[in-house]
């Protein structure tokens, strides 16, 4: 399975003579040392945050469903680093902690939402799957598989309608890629040339069903072909490949050429949710990916080659562990929402 996470170049090459214009093949981003350090830091923040969330779940401090992003960090961090903060919108499904952290949202309010506290970003009323930050133009956090694709298309519609130059990045998984509304959205997005990047995070399992068992066309970047939407397959375990793809896609979309699909080949190390025993794949498979393709290790090795010392990386880790542990303390010690929160925010107005 490690193979699948790192597609051969030939797998993702466009047809020899494309019959319509395509974006250029994305180039791996050439990051400066400081840039890569920042990406590394963000990925590590997500990794440590999710590990802590897993722990708190085990302690009963987090309830319900909790879907961890461990293994997929390079996707959100790489892609979102190519966006214009404060302008471009991001929307995703229920596995949303990573995308929020990558958009600069305070880990404390995310963790406090996980523990269902008043200080949580949704005042404890959304939980793991339903978090939003309109200020950061992060539009959720949606629990219905595939819904974010139509909603994201609507956000892109807004960018075009308002002529604000922004775009929407809508993330969904290989499982959601089989939902009907995804294709309804593809059709309208291309028809109206909406500024949207459809990001398929192909972590290879829709809950317990592998892509091959659920998808007649398992090369998901091709899923837009009948709508004339170009698709690009990207190594989602390489943060700089993700960044490069994000820039190519954003340039295409912003130039008014309509949507683009990025299929990010990635892998989640943990179960679908905390309650998933993951019997559908072998421990060896997971181990092999972790050892050979881990996006954080990968970036660390590259940083070392750029002259960053092991000690410096350790300092970063220490700093992040402190941030995460403060977030956890905050989330544990914050009060639960007062009971009158029960009836607030049902409607905006009073009738």
């Amino acid at each position, binding site marked *: 399975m490690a193979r699948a996470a790192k597609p051969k170049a030939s797998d993702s090459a466009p047809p020899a003579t494309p019959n319509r214009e395509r974006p250029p093949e994305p180039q791996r981003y050439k990051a400066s040392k400081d840039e890569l350090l920042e990406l590394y830091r963000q990925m590590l923040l997500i990794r440590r945050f999710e590990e802590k969330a897993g722990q708190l779940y085990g302690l009963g401090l987090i309830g319900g469903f909790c879907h961890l992003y461990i293994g997929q960090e390079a996707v959100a961090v790489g892609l979102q680093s190519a966006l214009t903060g404060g302008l471009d919108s991001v929307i995703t499904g229920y596995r949303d902690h990573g995308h929020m952290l990558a958009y600069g949202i305070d880990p404390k309010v995310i963790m406090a939402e996980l523990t269902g506290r008043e200080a949580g970003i949704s005042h404890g*009323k959304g939980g793991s799957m339903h978090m939003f*930050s309109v200020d950061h133009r992060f539009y959720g956090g949606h629990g219905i598989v595939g*819904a974010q694709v*139509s909603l994201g298309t*609507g956000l*892109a519609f807004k960018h075009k309608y308002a002529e604000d130059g922004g775009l929407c990045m809508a993330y969904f998984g290989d499982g959601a890629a089989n939902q009907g509304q995804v294709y309804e959205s593809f059709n309208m997005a291309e028809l109206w040339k909406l500024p949207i990047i459809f990001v398929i995070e192909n972590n290879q399992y829709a809950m317990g069903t592998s892509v091959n068992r659920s998808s007649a066309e398992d090369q998901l970047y091709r899923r837009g072909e009948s709508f004339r939407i170009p698709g690009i397959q990207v190594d989602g375990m390489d943060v700089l490949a993700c960044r490069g793809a994000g820039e190519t896609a954003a340039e295409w979309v912003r130039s008014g050429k309509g949507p683009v699909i990025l299929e990010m080949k990635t892998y989640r190390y943990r179960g679908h949710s905390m309650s998933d025993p993951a019997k559908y794949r072998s421990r060896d498979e997971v181990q092999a990916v972790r050892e050979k393709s881990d996006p954080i290790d990968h970036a660390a090795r590259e940083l070392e080659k750029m002259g960053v010392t092991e000690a410096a990386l350790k300092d970063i880790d220490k700093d992040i562990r402190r941030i995460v542990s403060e977030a956890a303390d905050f989330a544990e010690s914050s009060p639960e929402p007062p009971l009158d929160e029960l009836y607030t925010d049902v409607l905006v107005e009073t*009738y």
Partner: protein
Amino acid sequence: MAIELKMPALSPTMEEGTLAKWLVKAGDIVKSGDILAEIETDKATMEFEAVDEGTIAEILVPEGTDGVKVGTVIATIAGEGEATTPAPAKAGAQEPADQKTEPTPEPHKVETGARKLFEAATHDATVGEAEVPEGTEMVRTTVREALRDAMAEEMRKDERVFVMGEEVAEYQGAYKVTQGLLDEFGPKRVIDTPITEYGFAGVGTGAAMGGLRPIVEFMTFNFAMQAIDHIINSAAKTNYMSGGQMRCPIVFRGPNGAASRVAAQHSQNYGPWYASVPGLIVISPYDAADAKGLLKAAIRSEDPVVFLENELLYGRSFDVPKLDDFVLPIGKARIMKPGKDVTLVSYSIGVGVALEAAEQLAGEGIDAEVIDLRTLRPLDTATVLKSLAKTNRIVVVEEGWPTCSISSEIAAVAMEQGFDDLDAPVLRVTNADVPLPYAANLEKAALIDTARVVEAVKKVCYR
């Protein structure tokens, strides 16, 4: 034997139309499929095609004639070898149709339930609209035009408002409700979608989350079942789930409930479904003034609104106050007719039936108060309970299924909050608890009618 061409019924509720234009003249040879004339209904201009072959013998109704009843013979065709009436040598010299008004056979007109609902929908309120300043000029307006005017006025006021849906732009609306909007506002703001309800409901909802104010038209609410996930899971719940951060100011609108003879999949009242969902506003008006004033309020609301119209009411005319900005409050019922003996509670097309029943009951010495709920969520229980305290009896009239309905809700509210005021059990007059059948007689048996309301009222009045 000449073939008679009769004024066709081009919609289930069409009774007459305008013969806008003849495209043939006497003496022309026509074959099946040729377009003979253009006929205007209240909804659209339709082309009238030849079915039979032959020569146009005579044009009996000249173009430009208004109010041509369905079934009127408008021309005759002579078949092959038949003598045509001496074809006039000059085109356009047809006899000035001083109406050869030979008794035209009535078209086969079946008595249907929908027709009775439609006919009852001429009944109007007997009390003035409290929200309108005295002396305001009233203009007869169809519900269809009132809805269009509401949208147009709000679109003029607020750049963020746009309309999307199937056939809303170039076709001018499947039921002509969006007529003229494309011309005025252009394709950026009046948007034809593919047939893709789930998709465009999501796109509209996303656009609302992004800060626009979409009006999403469903061709009928039956098709919105494909999109109900976005209406409920995305639009209704997000404000709550986001701790009040993410608003969704959107209006989902379109016809709801039974139309005429369109059978089960096109004839359902979704009022109770949506009214059960916290986070939604649900409005279901009866007359044109409420349609206008409440749609304007819906478009301005910061909350997601499901706005349930009724196809049978679109062509009905009512008084609409001539005001620059006529907006009605959401969540307020309206007393259509005051009374003291029994309270009839209804909404949408049921209001016409309730008013007709009240009229009949008055003749029998029972003075019924008729309440139009207008908004189904939040429900104006105060108005209902106040009326109950006065009359001590309630009959709910609902064009919809009985189980888990608005009627059930009113019954529960009356029992929980008005128990001491009740002198009789609350009765429900609803459609039969079956998918709506096609056959005219069965449809009639399934839909509410005045007789059943009268019967229920007599029961609660122990008469």
